[in-house]
């Protein structure tokens, strides 16, 4: 292996970041997706658009605003400081927050599609069988939406692994704290260490291919993302 300890640290950090981000996204994204799938509110359009923003915004824009908002003078920064947590930029926690926002649409949209595909009938059937809305969500909706959760988890994880711009803007480049694989590759290239860049970059290509292969062969229908 031509990976040195800082490469391994970057890989390990990336896995930690992507795992934690995916977990948080499934927890945060599920109610958002459920609401978007069920609501008839006029806010559905605006909320859906906000959730989808990270799809089209350059990561640097996202990273810049996160930096401003979470920085010492930003509203979130003031709160975290008041709580004695310090400021989030240039910390692993800050990276997690940024990743959750950056990958949000990749989790919310497959979940929303899955919830919409279930339709209202199974929910009505469950209600006529004495299941309360919460009971129905856990006993009917979750099992029926399982493929959507798997897709959402895979996409959320993979997309977080692939982020670069946001990390660079808010995470900086601190080994074992905020230096993920994509940043490590950048560093290798800057230092003209092409061999090491190849190992990591090639690994990313293989990883991404395997993930997409999983996604596209798991169901015959083509996923949206």
């Amino acid at each position, binding site marked *: 292996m031509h990976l040195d300890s800082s490469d391994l640290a970057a890989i390990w950090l990336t896995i930690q970041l992507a795992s934690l981000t995916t977990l948080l996204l499934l927890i945060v994204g599920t109610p958002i997706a459920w609401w978007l799938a069920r609501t008839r509110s006029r806010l559905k359009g605006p909320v859906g658009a906000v959730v989808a923003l990270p799809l089209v915004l350059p990561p640097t824009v996202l990273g810049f605003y996160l930096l401003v908002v979470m920085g010492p003078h930003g509203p979130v920064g003031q709160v975290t400081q008041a709580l004695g947590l310090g400021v989030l930029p240039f910390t692993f926690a800050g990276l997690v927050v940024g990743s959750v926002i950056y990958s949000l649409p990749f989790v919310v949209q497959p979940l929303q599609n899955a919830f919409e595909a279930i339709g209202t*009938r*199974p929910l*009505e*059937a*469950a*209600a*006529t*069988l*004495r*299941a*309360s*809305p919460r*009971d*129905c969500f856990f*006993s*009917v909706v979750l*099992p*029926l939406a399982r493929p959507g959760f798997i897709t959402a988890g895979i996409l959320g994880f993979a997309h977080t692994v692939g982020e670069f711009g946001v990390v660079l803007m808010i995470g900086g480049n601190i080994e074992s704290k905020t230096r993920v694989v994509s940043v490590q590759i950048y560093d290798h290239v800057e230092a003209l260490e092409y061999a090491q860049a190849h190992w990591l970059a090639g690994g990313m290509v293989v990883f991404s291919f395997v993930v997409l292969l999983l996604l596209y062969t798991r169901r015959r229908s083509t996923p949206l993302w």
Partner: protein
Amino acid sequence: MHDPIPTVVADAADACGIEARFRVDYPGFALDVDLRLPGRGVSALYGHSGSGKTTCLRCLAGLEPAAQGYLRVNGDVWLDTGAGIALPTHRRPLGYVFQEASLFPHLTVLRNLRFGLTRVPGGQRRVDLDQAVELLGIGHLLARMPAGLSGGERQRVGIARALLTSPRLLLMDEPLASLDVARKQEILPYLERLHDELDIPVIYVSHAPQEVARLADHLVLLEEGRATASGPIAQILARLDLPLAMAEDASVVVQGTVADFDPAYRLMSVRLPGSSSRLRVVHRPLPTGSTARLAVKARDVSVALAQPQGSSIVNVIPVRVLDMAPAGNPDHMLVRLDADGTLLLARVTRYSRDQLGLAPGVPAWAQIKAVSVLA
């Protein structure tokens, strides 16, 4: 000395039965009904598609959140929007059979059946699993997944699943509509057993006259979101002012008691209620004393002023002319006949009416060419 705590004793007659007033407004469609349905037996909501029958059923179930109005089922108020009462669907002790069964695709048949059963507190269970499985003949399907069942099997599982919640009101939304004729014939006997064996009021939505004639005790006609008629089926089917009577195959339903059976001719004799008249029909024997439900088509009934002699027609019974109305066809009249309380319709030509001098109150003889046994 304390005054006794005042207790509200509901009027027994008032508390029993189903009182339903609903108003729902949708763009292009409004439902506005005020129904009183019996607290037992099968009530059919009958009408063309778009008449509001399914919406009405969904209002009963609490599946139309926009519904305004009042609903009381055998004494319990489920909805009273004026008083801010609206029991959510899962708190209403009802069973609902959807048009397409709507089984949970991720659960086996057994787990589908147990879904509702386990959510009903033990003390309120009146139907057990074995009973429902036996009643609907689905014992061999329990381990299967819904995707592997035929339409008829799925519908039977759907009915059993609804029954297992021990409902105090069973709502059925065209449970046979998605099935072909053979599957319908497969399920109808189970529905009849339901009717005979379980003492649960059933509200049955249908646009199929045959199903209604076979199953319903009470009939509600819906048209464009309004109830145009509501009453015992024998009376509603015989009403001359409703479009039912205008139909080419207008018929009445007659309920009687099986009196005897002549095995030599396979002839079953059915006594009409409150009358000495009998209708005889070639049929397999039904137990003596059981209730038989017969259908008589208006075009199979003719009227004579004197008792006909030497006719091949077996069923000739004394009647009195009640009233008459033009049939859909301008050359024909529909005559409503009273056979000691049992109503019949006869379709005669205008010529015959004038020849015989048929008028309300005239005694006559009804010759019934064909009787079919519904159940």
